[in-house]
């Protein structure tokens, strides 16, 4: 009995959780892109939040705890609030009545089919060289140490990038651009 429980906690549960979270991610992703019930951008945004949260679950399964937290805070929090604010600013009522063109659907399915075929073929052709029992832990302390030693220059550059983005956004959102 104990052995059985050990087996579940050691190997089966994470695998089951993977399938649950992967299915949820893909399901919500489909609902973002092609929701049969609603073409409202708000619905898409809400399903994008759910996609991102289930992807954070996948990150936890990959032991990337810090990134899972950042994913929820930055994407599901900040970015999606930004999206919703912009949807609120723009009046998008009439968008829903336009039809999706047949050409667009065909082109989309064709390109997606091609790219999936390429992927499956390359996945079979490559030796992934993956460790069977990985030990990497993405906890905050380790990532922080790496970030402030080896990657300190990119870190500072990214802070400048955020400043530039802020200035650019303020400039762009002025009433008269000149």
């Amino acid at each position, binding site marked *: 009995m104990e052995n059985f429980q050990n087996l579940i906690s050691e190997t089966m549960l994470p695998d089951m959780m993977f399938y649950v979270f992967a299915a949820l991610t*893909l399901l919500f992703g489909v609902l973002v*892109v092609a929701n049969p019930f609603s073409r409202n951008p708000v619905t*898409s945004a809400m399903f994008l939040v759910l996609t991102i949260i289930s*992807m954070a679950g996948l990150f936890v399964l990959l032991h990337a705890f810090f990134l899972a937290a950042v994913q929820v805070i930055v994407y599901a929090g900040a970015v999606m609030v930004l999206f919703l604010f912009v949807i609120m600013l723009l009046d998008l009522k009439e968008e829903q009545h336009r039809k999706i063109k047949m050409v667009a659907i065909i082109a989309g*399915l064709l390109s997606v089919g091609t790219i999936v075929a390429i992927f499956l073929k390359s996945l079979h052709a490559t030796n992934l060289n993956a460790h069977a029992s990985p030990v990497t832990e993405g906890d905050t302390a380790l990532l922080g140490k790496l970030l402030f030693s080896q990657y300190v220059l990119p870190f500072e550059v990214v802070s400048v990038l955020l400043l530039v*983005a802020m200035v650019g956004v303020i400039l762009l959102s002025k009433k008269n651009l000149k």
Partner: protein
Amino acid sequence: MHVGLEQYLTVSFLLFALGLLGVIMRRNLLVIYMSLELMLNAANLALVSFSRFNDNLNGQILVFFIITVAAAEVSVGLALIVALYRRRQSAHVEDLTTMKL
């Protein structure tokens, strides 16, 4: 079946394909932008799983930077969409035909 790198990569790639489908199929600028975010997230998932299964934290650092840059990119892109909407009163790609020959 034991879940390994291959399964994670498959999920990541299907998500990327979904994002691509959205970019090609949808006509609303905001939804196209959301699909772009979906594609970016798919790449993040691939990087994190490579990082995990190769015992190397550099992939996660890269994802950290991608998330930061994506946040900046979203703010600039949405400001551009709002500025465009102010000028054209539309956020529909078919109405933006200035560059058509």
